[in-house]
């Protein structure tokens, strides 16, 4: 029963800091009882001014390492897209062997990212034993990353004109061993995620995104493919070693026969993509051509070429969450980039969240939001950061530091008395 003149909807803010969210973002939920009527998304809490640094402080080679730090998880995707954009702008062609190594690293990242997501999703629905299981399984691919690149996460493999480290024949058996491990465990993971009654109850027909909505809202990556949009940069456009392979975008109907566009479908797509990644890496190991790994090993020379170069380029890579695009412009005589524009996949996928949440229950918010695999730091990457506003509530580092020093002095003075 509706009372005339009385408001029946309430607005519940979730975030910027909230246990259900892994990174800072605010969702303003308009609810009628338990049902969500409308959603507003407020972003911008983790701006770091990365593009500005790339255009004002760093040279193009230093930018590779900055691009790597746009996201803690896609630490291969951003440099991959970035080096492709710069190569295009400056007319540098990387050697064939480097293209294969780039793809091997990018696919290893996809396996680790999808497994990480699977764990988080299990945790969101309160299934922590699965969360522990998946993250234990994920350790194998982290070990492999460390074995190949020297780091668990920041891989530092990409370089303008190629890659920084080779993957040698002696390392192949270790890669194959890890891939075999995932082949054997794959069916177990599939049973856990796709046949479990609790998971099915929480994910089937929840957070639906229809194909047409996905197309209109420009949704990309596994979120889009789960809604039946057959868009995958690896399939669509020739770049890296992907151009030599017949990659097919995975939609959930391969396994289930239909496309619903719910959370369950997003799990299906991501699981199958883990298998696809294993196959891609195996093919790369079989077909990798011999030769150099860098077009120009002397970085000072590369920097000089880039300083003289004039042009623009756009690099696009299918990151684990969707299409990641970098646009770069070089101006002759300028040491930094003239323009650097980054778009991470969550930027567009966020826009689909209101559509997914409308009509859902309040308790579904964490899992629906997690189902797009949001990466907020990625999205909020680009603005000049300055906190010296007139508001007294904001403290900048130095002031905080000063307060801290003062307190130490005060305490030591008290002690001395």
């Amino acid at each position, binding site marked *: 029963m509706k009372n005339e003149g009385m408001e029946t909807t309430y607005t519940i803010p979730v975030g910027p800091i909230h246990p259900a969210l892994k990174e800072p973002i605010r969702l303003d939920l308009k609810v009628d009882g338990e049902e969500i009527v409308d959603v507003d998304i407020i972003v*911008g809490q983790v701006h770091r001014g990365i593009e500005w640094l790339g255009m004002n402080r760093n040279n193009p080679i230093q930018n590779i390492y900055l691009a790597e730090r746009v996201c803690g998880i896609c630490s291969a995707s951003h440099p991959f897209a970035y080096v492709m954009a710069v190569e*295009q702008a400056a007319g540098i062609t990387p050697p*064939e062997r480097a293209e294969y190594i780039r793809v091997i690293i990018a696919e290893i990242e996809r396996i680790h990212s999808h497994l990480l997501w699977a764990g988080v999703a299990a945790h969101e629905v309160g299934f922590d034993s699965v969360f522990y299981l998946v993250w234990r399984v994920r350790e194998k691919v982290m070990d492999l990353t460390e074995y190949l690149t020297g780091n668990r996460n920041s891989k530092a493999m990409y370089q303008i004109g190629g890659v920084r480290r080779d993957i040698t024949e002696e390392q192949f058996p270790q890669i194959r061993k890890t891939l075999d491990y995932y082949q054997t465990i794959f069916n177990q993971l599939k049973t856990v995620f796709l046949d479990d009654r609790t998971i099915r109850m929480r994910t089937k027909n929840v957070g639906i995104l229809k194909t047409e909505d996905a197309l209109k809202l420009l949704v990309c990556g596994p979120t889009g493919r789960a809604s039946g949009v057959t868009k995958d940069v690896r399939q669509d456009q020739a770049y890296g070693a992907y151009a030599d392979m017949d990659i097919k*975008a995975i939609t959930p109907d391969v396994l289930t026969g239909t496309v619903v566009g719910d959370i369950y479908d997003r799990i299906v797509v991501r699981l199958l993509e883990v298998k696809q990644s294993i196959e891609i890496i195996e093919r790369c190991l079989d077909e990798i051509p011999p030769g150099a790994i860098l077009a120009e090993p002397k970085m000072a020379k590369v920097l000089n070429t880039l300083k003289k170069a004039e042009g623009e380029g756009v690099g*696009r890579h299918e990151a684990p969450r969707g299409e990641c695009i970098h646009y770069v412009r070089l101006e002759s005589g300028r040491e930094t980039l003239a323009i650097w524009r980054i778009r991470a996949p969550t930027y567009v996928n966020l826009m689909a969240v209101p559509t997914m949440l409308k009509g859902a229950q309040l308790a579904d918010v964490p899992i629906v939001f997690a189902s797009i695999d949001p990466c907020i730091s990625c999205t909020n990457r680009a603005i000049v*950061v*300055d906190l010296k506003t007139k508001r007294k509530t904001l403290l900048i580092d130095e002031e905080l530091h000063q307060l801290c020093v003062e307190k130490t002095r005060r305490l030591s003075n008290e002690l001395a008395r």
Partner: protein
Amino acid sequence: MEILSPEEIVESFKAALGSSFIDSKIYQREVAVKKNLFQAIWIYVKREAFRQAVDLICKLQEYPHLSIISSSDLGDSVELIYHFTIYYGQHLKELSLGLCLNLPKNDLTIPTITDIIPGALFAERETQEMMGVEVVGIPDNRRLFLPEDFPEGVYPWRKDEKGPHDLLRVLPGREKK
């Protein structure tokens, strides 16, 4: 769906837009071992023909994917590039299409395209707050990334006097550049 080559697409734009079509550029590069082609097109149009050009792109593909709007301060003018991709979903058929426009600094307005592509909203909101280009008819006029207490009339991507230079924090012991 009929797939046109980059040259045919440029020709069709030239024919449809007439004098509003300024220039075009086709980029091609051979990739990896099999030497398949990576292709990108850049099309430069006058502002008056912007909506018409977006309609033309929608004729090439029913739902073109708008990746991002990039903008650069060129001194007297601001250049906007709408990075579209078309023909996705088919093996190696996709094209990157950059639609480039030049707006003079004394009239920084551009019509919205959210009625054609609803997902363009975030990119338009960001262009508006970061570059100071007014998007006419935008359904949601709020800021996207900038905090509410960020001063009005300062646009972080500008390189002129409206840029963020006064806001830069100078580290202790350093001179202001």
